[in-house]
Protein backbone atom coordinates (compact mmCIF):
# COMPACT_ATOMS: atom_id res chain seq x y z
CA UNK A 1 0.00 0.00 0.00
CA UNK A 2 1.69 3.17 -1.18
CA UNK A 3 0.19 5.38 1.53
CA UNK A 4 2.02 3.28 4.08
CA UNK A 5 5.42 4.07 2.63
CA UNK A 6 6.93 7.24 4.01
CA UNK A 7 10.26 7.13 2.22
CA UNK A 8 11.14 5.27 -0.91
CA UNK A 9 13.95 5.25 -3.41
CA UNK A 10 14.08 3.78 -6.86
CA UNK A 11 17.24 3.04 -8.74
CA UNK A 12 19.26 5.19 -6.38
CA UNK A 13 22.82 5.33 -7.68
CA UNK A 14 25.92 7.27 -6.71
CA UNK A 15 29.10 7.12 -8.71
CA UNK A 16 32.39 8.61 -7.63
CA UNK A 17 34.98 8.92 -10.41
CA UNK A 18 34.74 5.43 -11.79
CA UNK A 19 33.52 3.79 -8.61
CA UNK A 20 29.90 3.00 -7.93
CA UNK A 21 29.29 3.33 -4.20
CA UNK A 22 25.54 2.86 -4.37
CA UNK A 23 24.08 0.95 -7.27
CA UNK A 24 20.40 0.92 -8.11
CA UNK A 25 19.04 0.73 -4.59
CA UNK A 26 15.27 0.39 -4.24
CA UNK A 27 14.26 1.02 -0.68
CA UNK A 28 10.86 1.31 0.94
CA UNK A 29 10.48 2.45 4.50
CA UNK A 30 7.12 1.78 6.09
CA UNK A 31 5.53 4.56 8.11
CA UNK A 32 5.94 4.07 11.84
CA UNK A 33 8.57 1.37 11.56
CA UNK A 34 12.16 1.14 12.69
CA UNK A 35 14.12 0.24 9.62
CA UNK A 36 17.80 -0.69 9.78
CA UNK A 37 20.33 -0.45 7.01
CA UNK A 38 23.21 -2.84 7.59
CA UNK A 39 26.05 -4.34 5.66
CA UNK A 40 29.77 -5.00 5.78
CA UNK A 41 32.34 -2.24 5.51
CA UNK A 42 32.27 -0.48 2.19
CA UNK A 43 28.75 -1.68 1.42
CA UNK A 44 27.63 1.87 0.71
CA UNK A 45 25.55 2.40 3.85
CA UNK A 46 26.94 5.80 4.70
CA UNK A 47 26.82 6.96 1.09
CA UNK A 48 23.24 5.79 0.87
CA UNK A 49 22.49 7.62 4.09
CA UNK A 50 24.05 10.82 2.80
CA UNK A 51 22.00 10.53 -0.38
CA UNK A 52 18.80 10.23 1.59
CA UNK A 53 19.68 13.25 3.72
CA UNK A 54 20.78 15.23 0.66
CA UNK A 55 24.32 15.73 1.90
CA UNK A 56 25.27 14.02 -1.36
CA UNK A 57 23.53 14.36 -4.70
CA UNK A 58 22.64 11.07 -6.44
CA UNK A 59 23.98 10.31 -9.91
CA UNK A 60 20.71 8.61 -10.87
CA UNK A 61 17.48 7.54 -9.28
CA UNK A 62 14.77 9.25 -7.30
CA UNK A 63 13.86 9.67 -3.67
CA UNK A 64 10.24 10.12 -2.62
CA UNK A 65 9.26 11.35 0.82
CA UNK A 66 5.56 11.31 1.59
CA UNK A 67 4.98 10.99 -2.13
CA UNK A 68 7.00 14.10 -2.86
CA UNK A 69 10.10 13.97 -5.01
CA UNK A 70 12.96 15.23 -2.84
CA UNK A 71 15.78 14.05 -5.09
CA UNK A 72 17.00 17.58 -5.79
CA UNK A 73 16.10 19.28 -2.52
CA UNK A 74 18.75 20.93 -0.36
CA UNK A 75 19.59 19.45 3.06
CA UNK A 76 18.07 22.33 5.01
CA UNK A 77 14.82 21.99 3.06
CA UNK A 78 14.21 18.32 3.81
CA UNK A 79 14.72 19.06 7.50
CA UNK A 80 11.88 21.52 7.12
CA UNK A 81 9.74 18.75 5.64
CA UNK A 82 10.21 16.70 8.80
CA UNK A 83 13.05 14.42 7.74
CA UNK A 84 15.89 14.99 10.18
CA UNK A 85 19.23 13.23 10.35
CA UNK A 86 21.81 12.59 13.02
CA UNK A 87 25.54 12.29 12.45
CA UNK A 88 28.06 9.56 13.02
CA UNK A 89 30.42 11.81 14.85
CA UNK A 90 28.61 13.49 17.66
CA UNK A 91 26.92 16.55 16.29
CA UNK A 92 26.49 19.11 18.99
CA UNK A 93 27.31 22.81 19.10
CA UNK A 94 30.35 22.49 21.38
CA UNK A 95 30.61 26.10 22.55
CA UNK A 96 26.93 26.46 23.41
CA UNK A 97 25.32 25.19 26.58
CA UNK A 98 23.37 21.96 26.65
CA UNK A 99 20.14 23.89 27.01
CA UNK A 100 21.00 26.27 24.16
CA UNK A 101 21.82 23.33 21.90
CA UNK A 102 18.26 22.12 22.23
CA UNK A 103 16.88 25.62 22.03
CA UNK A 104 18.61 26.23 18.69
CA UNK A 105 16.42 23.49 17.26
CA UNK A 106 13.27 24.84 18.92
CA UNK A 107 14.13 28.32 17.70
CA UNK A 108 14.00 27.40 14.03
CA UNK A 109 10.26 27.55 13.57
CA UNK A 110 9.89 30.95 15.17
CA UNK A 111 10.58 33.01 12.09
CA UNK A 112 12.49 35.76 13.87
CA UNK A 113 15.87 34.19 13.35
CA UNK A 114 17.20 37.02 11.23
CA UNK A 115 16.22 39.62 13.82
CA UNK A 116 19.67 40.72 14.87
CA UNK A 117 18.25 43.74 16.68
CA UNK A 118 16.12 41.70 19.07
CA UNK A 119 17.37 40.53 22.44
CA UNK A 120 17.95 36.84 22.98
CA UNK A 121 15.71 37.21 25.99
CA UNK A 122 12.81 36.68 23.58
CA UNK A 123 14.03 33.09 23.39
CA UNK A 124 13.44 32.49 27.07
CA UNK A 125 9.93 31.34 26.29
CA UNK A 126 11.50 28.26 24.72
CA UNK A 127 13.52 27.34 27.79
CA UNK A 128 10.70 25.38 29.36
CA UNK A 129 10.34 23.06 26.35
CA UNK A 130 14.10 22.80 26.05
CA UNK A 131 14.37 21.76 29.70
CA UNK A 132 11.77 19.07 29.22
CA UNK A 133 13.65 17.62 26.28
CA UNK A 134 16.96 17.75 28.13
CA UNK A 135 15.32 15.95 31.01
CA UNK A 136 13.89 13.28 28.71
CA UNK A 137 17.39 12.22 27.71
CA UNK A 138 18.67 12.32 31.28
CA UNK A 139 20.83 15.43 31.00
CA UNK A 140 19.03 17.74 33.43
CA UNK A 141 21.99 18.06 35.75
CA UNK A 142 24.24 19.05 32.84
CA UNK A 143 22.09 21.69 31.17
CA UNK A 144 24.29 24.63 32.10
CA UNK A 145 27.50 22.97 30.88
CA UNK A 146 28.76 23.69 27.40
CA UNK A 147 28.14 20.75 25.12
CA UNK A 148 31.85 20.36 24.41
CA UNK A 149 32.40 19.36 28.02
CA UNK A 150 30.04 16.38 27.89
CA UNK A 151 31.20 12.79 27.63
CA UNK A 152 30.75 11.04 24.31
CA UNK A 153 27.64 9.14 25.31
CA UNK A 154 26.01 12.26 26.71
CA UNK A 155 26.78 14.17 23.53
CA UNK A 156 24.87 11.51 21.63
CA UNK A 157 21.98 11.85 24.06
CA UNK A 158 22.03 15.62 23.63
CA UNK A 159 22.04 15.18 19.88
CA UNK A 160 18.91 13.08 20.12
CA UNK A 161 17.23 15.67 22.33
CA UNK A 162 18.11 18.35 19.79
CA UNK A 163 16.75 16.27 16.94
CA UNK A 164 13.55 15.55 18.84
CA UNK A 165 13.09 19.25 19.46
CA UNK A 166 12.19 19.54 15.78
CA UNK A 167 9.47 16.95 16.34
CA UNK A 168 10.44 15.25 13.08
CA UNK A 169 8.13 12.86 11.33
CA UNK A 170 11.07 10.72 10.37
CA UNK A 171 14.49 10.27 11.90
CA UNK A 172 17.57 9.15 10.06
CA UNK A 173 20.15 7.93 12.55
CA UNK A 174 23.71 7.41 11.38
CA UNK A 175 25.25 4.73 13.61
CA UNK A 176 23.66 5.94 16.83
CA UNK A 177 25.69 3.47 18.88
CA UNK A 178 29.10 4.12 17.32
CA UNK A 179 31.84 4.34 19.91
CA UNK A 180 29.56 3.89 22.90
CA UNK A 181 30.04 1.91 26.06
CA UNK A 182 27.57 -0.78 27.08
CA UNK A 183 25.59 1.42 29.50
CA UNK A 184 25.23 4.16 26.95
CA UNK A 185 24.10 1.67 24.33
CA UNK A 186 21.31 0.49 26.61
CA UNK A 187 20.25 4.01 27.42
CA UNK A 188 20.18 5.16 23.80
CA UNK A 189 18.46 1.96 22.75
CA UNK A 190 15.68 2.59 25.24
CA UNK A 191 15.49 6.18 24.07
CA UNK A 192 15.18 5.21 20.41
CA UNK A 193 12.46 2.77 21.30
CA UNK A 194 10.64 5.47 23.23
CA UNK A 195 10.82 8.10 20.49
CA UNK A 196 9.86 5.61 17.79
CA UNK A 197 6.30 5.50 19.13
CA UNK A 198 4.83 7.94 16.68
CA UNK A 199 7.65 8.30 14.20
CA UNK A 200 9.54 6.46 11.53
CA UNK A 201 13.18 5.69 12.07
CA UNK A 202 15.74 4.64 9.53
CA UNK A 203 19.14 3.84 10.97
CA UNK A 204 22.52 2.68 9.85
CA UNK A 205 23.98 0.59 12.62
CA UNK A 206 26.82 -1.88 13.06
CA UNK A 207 25.82 -3.24 16.43
CA UNK A 208 23.80 -6.25 15.31
CA UNK A 209 22.30 -6.97 18.70
CA UNK A 210 20.87 -3.46 18.73
CA UNK A 211 19.60 -3.97 15.21
CA UNK A 212 18.07 -7.30 16.20
CA UNK A 213 16.21 -5.92 19.19
CA UNK A 214 15.08 -2.61 17.71
CA UNK A 215 14.28 -2.98 14.07
CA UNK A 216 11.10 -4.14 12.42
CA UNK A 217 12.75 -4.47 9.08
CA UNK A 218 16.30 -4.75 7.87
CA UNK A 219 17.87 -4.01 4.52
CA UNK A 220 21.27 -5.55 3.95
CA UNK A 221 23.56 -3.75 1.54
CA UNK A 222 26.67 -5.21 -0.05
CA UNK A 223 28.82 -3.60 -2.73
CA UNK A 224 26.30 -0.84 -3.11
CA UNK A 225 23.37 -3.10 -3.83
CA UNK A 226 20.49 -4.50 -1.81
CA UNK A 227 21.45 -8.04 -0.87
CA UNK A 228 18.50 -9.03 1.25
CA UNK A 229 15.55 -7.55 3.06
CA UNK A 230 13.26 -8.78 5.79
CA UNK A 231 13.05 -9.04 9.57
CA UNK A 232 16.08 -10.04 11.60
CA UNK A 233 15.28 -13.75 11.73
CA UNK A 234 14.94 -13.98 7.98
CA UNK A 235 17.90 -11.82 7.14
CA UNK A 236 20.31 -13.48 9.57
CA UNK A 237 19.59 -16.89 8.06
CA UNK A 238 20.06 -15.74 4.50
CA UNK A 239 23.17 -17.52 3.21
CA UNK A 240 24.12 -14.55 1.01
CA UNK A 241 24.11 -12.27 4.04
CA UNK A 242 26.19 -14.71 6.07
CA UNK A 243 28.64 -15.00 3.22
CA UNK A 244 28.90 -11.25 2.75
CA UNK A 245 29.70 -10.74 6.40
CA UNK A 246 32.15 -13.62 6.69
CA UNK A 247 33.69 -12.72 3.35
CA UNK A 248 34.46 -9.25 4.61
CA UNK A 249 35.94 -10.47 7.87
CA UNK A 250 32.83 -10.66 9.98
CA UNK A 251 31.66 -7.09 9.90
CA UNK A 252 32.68 -5.03 12.90
CA UNK A 253 33.12 -7.37 15.77
CA UNK A 254 29.52 -7.21 16.94
CA UNK A 255 27.79 -10.55 16.97
Amino acid at each position, binding site marked *: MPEDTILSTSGLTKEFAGFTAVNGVDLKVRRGSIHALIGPNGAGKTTCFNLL*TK*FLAPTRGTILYNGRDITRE*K*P*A*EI*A*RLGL*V*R*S*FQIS*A*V*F*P*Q*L*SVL*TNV*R*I*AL*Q*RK*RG*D*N*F*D*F*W*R*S*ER*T*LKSLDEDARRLVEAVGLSSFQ*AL*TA*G*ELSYGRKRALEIA*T*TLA*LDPEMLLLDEPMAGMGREDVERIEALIRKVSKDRTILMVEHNLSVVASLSDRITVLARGQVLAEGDYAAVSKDPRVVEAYIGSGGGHGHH
Partner: protein
Amino acid sequence: MTNLASTTDTPAAAVLTETDDGAARLHRNLFIAIAAVLVVAPFVAYPVFVMKVLCFALFALAFNLLLGYGGLLSFGHAAYFGMASYVSAYTAKNWGLTPELAILLGTAVAAVLGTVFGALAIRRQGIYFAMITLALAQMVFFFSLQTPRFTGGEDGIQAVPRGKLFGLVSLADDRVLYWLVAAIFMGGLLLIYRIIHSPFGQVCKAIRDNEPRAISLGYRANQYKLMVFVLSATLAGLAGATKAIVFQLASLTDVYWTMSGEVVLMTLVGGLGTVFGPIVGAIVIVAMQNYLATLGAWVTVVQGVVFVVCVLLFREGIVGVIAKAIKKPL
Protein backbone atom coordinates in the same frame (compact mmCIF):
# COMPACT_ATOMS: atom_id res chain seq x y z
CA MET B 1 34.20 26.43 8.01
CA THR B 2 32.80 25.29 11.22
CA ASN B 3 35.94 25.99 12.78
CA LEU B 4 38.52 28.28 11.56
CA ALA B 5 37.86 30.10 14.76
CA SER B 6 38.13 27.09 16.96
CA THR B 7 40.24 24.39 15.45
CA THR B 8 42.59 24.84 18.35
CA ASP B 9 42.70 22.11 20.97
CA THR B 10 41.78 24.53 23.72
CA PRO B 11 39.08 26.49 21.98
CA ALA B 12 39.57 30.17 22.55
CA ALA B 13 37.10 31.38 25.13
CA ALA B 14 35.21 28.25 24.31
CA VAL B 15 33.67 27.47 27.60
CA LEU B 16 32.76 31.06 28.03
CA THR B 17 30.71 32.25 25.12
CA GLU B 18 27.36 32.21 26.78
CA THR B 19 25.71 34.84 28.79
CA ASP B 20 23.93 34.06 31.99
CA ASP B 21 22.38 36.75 34.14
CA GLY B 22 25.58 37.29 36.14
CA ALA B 23 27.54 37.83 32.96
CA ALA B 24 24.85 40.18 31.64
CA ARG B 25 25.21 42.33 34.77
CA LEU B 26 28.98 42.32 34.41
CA HIS B 27 28.65 43.41 30.81
CA ARG B 28 26.28 46.22 31.71
CA ASN B 29 28.77 47.47 34.26
CA LEU B 30 31.53 47.28 31.67
CA PHE B 31 29.48 49.32 29.24
CA ILE B 32 28.99 51.96 31.92
CA ALA B 33 32.73 51.90 32.61
CA ILE B 34 33.52 52.28 28.89
CA ALA B 35 31.11 55.20 28.66
CA ALA B 36 32.80 56.81 31.66
CA VAL B 37 36.24 56.32 30.10
CA LEU B 38 34.95 57.86 26.86
CA VAL B 39 33.79 60.94 28.78
CA VAL B 40 37.09 61.38 30.58
CA ALA B 41 39.46 60.34 27.79
CA PRO B 42 39.64 63.59 25.75
CA PHE B 43 40.68 65.50 28.88
CA VAL B 44 43.56 63.21 29.79
CA ALA B 45 44.72 62.04 26.36
CA TYR B 46 45.27 63.63 22.98
CA PRO B 47 41.75 63.57 21.40
CA VAL B 48 42.98 62.67 17.90
CA PHE B 49 44.80 59.68 19.33
CA VAL B 50 41.67 58.55 21.18
CA MET B 51 39.59 59.00 18.04
CA LYS B 52 42.09 56.91 16.10
CA VAL B 53 41.80 54.17 18.72
CA LEU B 54 38.00 54.34 18.56
CA CYS B 55 37.90 54.04 14.77
CA PHE B 56 40.20 51.05 14.75
CA ALA B 57 38.44 49.51 17.74
CA LEU B 58 35.14 49.69 15.85
CA PHE B 59 36.84 48.17 12.81
CA ALA B 60 38.20 45.31 14.95
CA LEU B 61 34.81 44.83 16.63
CA ALA B 62 33.20 44.48 13.20
CA PHE B 63 35.84 41.99 12.10
CA ASN B 64 35.44 40.00 15.30
CA LEU B 65 31.69 39.79 14.74
CA LEU B 66 32.43 37.87 11.55
CA LEU B 67 35.30 35.68 12.73
CA GLY B 68 34.53 35.25 16.42
CA TYR B 69 30.79 34.73 16.12
CA GLY B 70 30.28 33.78 12.50
CA GLY B 71 33.38 31.60 12.23
CA LEU B 72 34.29 33.28 8.95
CA LEU B 73 37.86 34.45 8.44
CA SER B 74 37.85 37.34 6.00
CA PHE B 75 41.25 38.48 4.87
CA GLY B 76 39.89 41.38 2.91
CA HIS B 77 38.19 43.64 5.40
CA ALA B 78 40.32 46.56 4.27
CA ALA B 79 38.10 46.71 1.19
CA TYR B 80 35.05 47.81 3.20
CA PHE B 81 37.01 50.01 5.57
CA GLY B 82 38.95 51.65 2.74
CA MET B 83 36.16 52.03 0.22
CA ALA B 84 33.91 53.63 2.83
CA SER B 85 36.78 55.89 3.73
CA TYR B 86 37.17 57.01 0.08
CA VAL B 87 33.45 57.55 -0.44
CA SER B 88 33.12 59.51 2.78
CA ALA B 89 36.15 61.67 1.98
CA TYR B 90 35.18 62.20 -1.66
CA THR B 91 31.58 63.18 -0.97
CA ALA B 92 32.50 65.46 1.91
CA LYS B 93 35.13 67.21 -0.17
CA ASN B 94 33.72 67.23 -3.71
CA TRP B 95 29.97 67.11 -3.12
CA GLY B 96 30.10 69.19 0.01
CA LEU B 97 28.07 66.69 1.99
CA THR B 98 27.71 67.25 5.71
CA PRO B 99 29.87 64.85 7.72
CA GLU B 100 26.99 62.66 8.94
CA LEU B 101 25.76 62.19 5.36
CA ALA B 102 29.25 61.50 4.07
CA ILE B 103 29.73 58.86 6.77
CA LEU B 104 26.32 57.33 6.07
CA LEU B 105 27.00 57.17 2.35
CA GLY B 106 30.42 55.59 2.90
CA THR B 107 28.84 53.02 5.21
CA ALA B 108 26.10 52.27 2.68
CA VAL B 109 28.66 51.68 -0.07
CA ALA B 110 30.51 49.27 2.25
CA ALA B 111 27.21 47.45 2.83
CA VAL B 112 26.64 47.05 -0.90
CA LEU B 113 30.22 45.94 -1.46
CA GLY B 114 29.88 43.50 1.45
CA THR B 115 26.71 42.04 -0.04
CA VAL B 116 28.33 41.42 -3.41
CA PHE B 117 31.66 40.11 -2.07
CA GLY B 118 29.99 38.14 0.70
CA ALA B 119 27.63 36.41 -1.73
CA LEU B 120 30.64 35.32 -3.78
CA ALA B 121 32.87 34.31 -0.86
CA ILE B 122 30.42 32.25 1.22
CA ARG B 123 30.19 29.75 -1.62
CA ARG B 124 33.52 28.40 -0.40
CA GLN B 125 34.69 27.42 3.02
CA GLY B 126 37.74 27.73 5.25
CA ILE B 127 40.96 28.82 3.62
CA TYR B 128 39.26 29.19 0.22
CA PHE B 129 36.82 31.62 1.72
CA ALA B 130 39.71 33.64 3.15
CA MET B 131 41.51 33.61 -0.22
CA ILE B 132 38.44 34.81 -2.10
CA THR B 133 37.94 37.70 0.31
CA LEU B 134 41.62 38.60 -0.09
CA ALA B 135 41.45 38.43 -3.88
CA LEU B 136 38.34 40.61 -4.02
CA ALA B 137 39.92 43.12 -1.65
CA GLN B 138 43.02 43.26 -3.85
CA MET B 139 40.77 44.07 -6.77
CA VAL B 140 39.41 47.00 -4.78
CA PHE B 141 42.98 48.07 -4.09
CA PHE B 142 43.90 48.04 -7.78
CA PHE B 143 40.69 49.82 -8.65
CA SER B 144 41.65 52.51 -6.13
CA LEU B 145 45.16 52.71 -7.56
CA GLN B 146 43.88 53.01 -11.14
CA THR B 147 41.20 55.65 -10.57
CA PRO B 148 43.12 58.69 -9.28
CA ARG B 149 40.26 60.93 -10.38
CA PHE B 150 38.18 59.40 -7.61
CA THR B 151 40.78 58.25 -5.04
CA GLY B 152 43.60 60.69 -5.66
CA GLY B 153 45.85 57.73 -6.48
CA GLU B 154 49.09 57.72 -4.51
CA ASP B 155 48.22 61.04 -2.85
CA GLY B 156 44.86 59.92 -1.57
CA ILE B 157 42.09 62.39 -0.85
CA GLN B 158 43.64 65.06 1.35
CA ALA B 159 42.30 68.04 3.25
CA VAL B 160 38.82 66.58 3.61
CA PRO B 161 36.67 69.23 5.27
CA ARG B 162 35.20 68.11 8.57
CA GLY B 163 32.27 70.37 7.90
CA LYS B 164 29.34 71.06 10.13
CA LEU B 165 27.33 68.31 11.74
CA PHE B 166 23.75 68.53 10.38
CA GLY B 167 24.98 71.76 8.84
CA LEU B 168 24.96 73.36 12.28
CA VAL B 169 27.83 72.34 14.55
CA SER B 170 31.35 72.87 13.26
CA LEU B 171 33.56 69.86 13.80
CA ALA B 172 36.82 71.70 13.16
CA ASP B 173 37.68 71.53 16.86
CA ASP B 174 39.00 68.07 17.84
CA ARG B 175 37.15 68.21 21.12
CA VAL B 176 33.81 68.72 19.37
CA LEU B 177 34.44 66.08 16.74
CA TYR B 178 35.44 63.71 19.51
CA TRP B 179 31.88 63.46 20.85
CA LEU B 180 30.56 62.47 17.46
CA VAL B 181 33.21 59.76 17.11
CA ALA B 182 32.63 58.54 20.67
CA ALA B 183 28.88 58.33 19.98
CA ILE B 184 29.44 56.39 16.74
CA PHE B 185 31.79 54.02 18.52
CA MET B 186 29.43 53.42 21.43
CA GLY B 187 26.50 52.92 19.07
CA GLY B 188 28.50 50.43 17.03
CA LEU B 189 29.62 48.56 20.14
CA LEU B 190 26.09 48.31 21.50
CA LEU B 191 24.74 47.19 18.14
CA ILE B 192 27.37 44.46 17.84
CA TYR B 193 26.66 43.34 21.39
CA ARG B 194 22.99 43.12 20.54
CA ILE B 195 23.67 41.19 17.33
CA ILE B 196 25.77 38.67 19.24
CA HIS B 197 23.02 38.25 21.80
CA SER B 198 20.06 38.09 19.45
CA PRO B 199 18.15 35.11 18.07
CA PHE B 200 20.15 35.70 14.90
CA GLY B 201 23.40 35.67 16.87
CA GLN B 202 22.46 32.36 18.45
CA VAL B 203 22.01 30.77 15.05
CA CYS B 204 25.31 32.25 13.86
CA LYS B 205 27.11 30.73 16.83
CA ALA B 206 25.50 27.38 16.09
CA ILE B 207 26.62 27.55 12.46
CA ARG B 208 30.11 28.57 13.59
CA ASP B 209 30.23 25.57 15.93
CA ASN B 210 28.87 22.98 13.53
CA GLU B 211 27.55 24.01 10.16
CA PRO B 212 26.36 20.59 8.88
CA ARG B 213 24.41 20.09 12.07
CA ALA B 214 22.77 23.50 11.81
CA ILE B 215 21.80 22.67 8.23
CA SER B 216 20.39 19.32 9.31
CA LEU B 217 18.18 21.21 11.76
CA GLY B 218 16.74 23.09 8.81
CA TYR B 219 18.77 26.31 8.93
CA ARG B 220 19.74 27.75 5.56
CA ALA B 221 23.27 28.38 6.73
CA ASN B 222 24.38 30.46 3.76
CA GLN B 223 21.72 33.09 4.37
CA TYR B 224 22.96 33.56 7.91
CA LYS B 225 26.57 33.65 6.80
CA LEU B 226 25.78 36.29 4.20
CA MET B 227 23.83 38.36 6.70
CA VAL B 228 26.62 38.36 9.29
CA PHE B 229 29.12 39.12 6.53
CA VAL B 230 27.12 42.14 5.40
CA LEU B 231 26.68 43.38 8.97
CA SER B 232 30.40 43.05 9.57
CA ALA B 233 31.33 44.79 6.31
CA THR B 234 28.86 47.59 7.01
CA LEU B 235 30.27 48.25 10.47
CA ALA B 236 33.82 48.08 9.10
CA GLY B 237 32.66 50.68 6.59
CA LEU B 238 31.26 52.86 9.36
CA ALA B 239 34.68 52.78 11.02
CA GLY B 240 36.48 53.66 7.78
CA ALA B 241 34.08 56.44 6.85
CA THR B 242 34.43 58.01 10.29
CA LYS B 243 38.21 57.70 10.12
CA ALA B 244 38.27 59.69 6.87
CA ILE B 245 36.48 62.61 8.55
CA VAL B 246 38.70 62.44 11.65
CA PHE B 247 42.01 62.48 9.77
CA GLN B 248 40.62 64.45 6.84
CA LEU B 249 42.32 61.86 4.68
CA ALA B 250 41.56 58.72 2.73
CA SER B 251 44.48 56.89 1.19
CA LEU B 252 45.64 53.66 -0.37
CA THR B 253 46.81 52.48 3.07
CA ASP B 254 43.16 52.06 4.02
CA VAL B 255 42.45 49.56 1.23
CA TYR B 256 45.83 47.80 1.24
CA TRP B 257 45.99 44.20 2.40
CA THR B 258 48.15 45.14 5.40
CA MET B 259 45.10 46.91 6.79
CA SER B 260 43.24 43.59 6.61
CA GLY B 261 46.16 41.99 8.43
CA GLU B 262 46.24 44.67 11.08
CA VAL B 263 42.62 44.11 12.04
CA VAL B 264 43.26 40.38 12.37
CA LEU B 265 46.18 41.22 14.63
CA MET B 266 44.11 43.55 16.82
CA THR B 267 41.38 40.97 17.20
CA LEU B 268 43.74 38.14 18.07
CA VAL B 269 45.80 40.17 20.53
CA GLY B 270 42.67 41.42 22.26
CA GLY B 271 40.78 38.16 22.25
CA LEU B 272 38.95 36.49 19.41
CA GLY B 273 35.32 35.72 20.11
CA THR B 274 35.16 38.00 23.13
CA VAL B 275 32.94 41.07 23.08
CA PHE B 276 35.52 43.48 24.48
CA GLY B 277 38.76 41.92 23.21
CA PRO B 278 38.96 43.84 19.92
CA ILE B 279 38.81 47.16 21.80
CA VAL B 280 41.79 46.17 23.95
CA GLY B 281 43.59 44.85 20.88
CA ALA B 282 43.03 48.12 19.03
CA ILE B 283 44.32 50.15 21.98
CA VAL B 284 47.47 48.01 22.18
CA ILE B 285 48.24 48.09 18.46
CA VAL B 286 47.43 51.77 17.88
CA ALA B 287 49.38 52.77 21.00
CA MET B 288 52.33 50.74 19.80
CA GLN B 289 52.25 52.40 16.38
CA ASN B 290 52.03 55.85 17.96
CA TYR B 291 54.51 55.61 20.77
CA LEU B 292 57.02 53.46 18.91
CA ALA B 293 56.76 55.61 15.78
CA THR B 294 60.35 56.78 16.40
CA LEU B 295 61.49 53.24 15.67
CA GLY B 296 60.38 53.69 12.07
CA ALA B 297 60.08 50.47 10.16
CA TRP B 298 60.95 48.54 13.31
CA VAL B 299 57.37 49.01 14.52
CA THR B 300 56.42 46.24 12.12
CA VAL B 301 59.01 43.98 13.69
CA VAL B 302 57.76 44.77 17.18
CA GLN B 303 54.19 44.06 16.01
CA GLY B 304 55.34 40.76 14.60
CA VAL B 305 56.98 39.81 17.88
CA VAL B 306 53.86 40.77 19.84
CA PHE B 307 51.81 38.63 17.52
CA VAL B 308 54.08 35.61 17.86
CA VAL B 309 54.25 35.96 21.64
CA CYS B 310 50.49 36.31 21.77
CA VAL B 311 49.87 33.19 19.72
CA LEU B 312 52.46 31.16 21.62
CA LEU B 313 51.63 32.22 25.16
CA PHE B 314 48.01 33.19 25.24
CA ARG B 315 46.05 32.19 22.23
CA GLU B 316 42.84 33.45 23.77
CA GLY B 317 44.18 37.01 23.65
CA ILE B 318 44.35 39.46 26.53
CA VAL B 319 40.62 39.61 27.26
CA GLY B 320 40.26 35.89 26.59
CA VAL B 321 42.80 35.17 29.33
CA ILE B 322 40.99 37.46 31.76
CA ALA B 323 37.65 35.86 30.89
CA LYS B 324 39.10 32.45 31.62
CA ALA B 325 40.53 33.62 34.92
CA ILE B 326 37.24 35.07 36.17
CA LYS B 327 35.22 32.30 34.50
CA LYS B 328 32.86 34.76 32.85
CA PRO B 329 32.38 35.54 29.19
CA LEU B 330 33.67 39.01 28.31
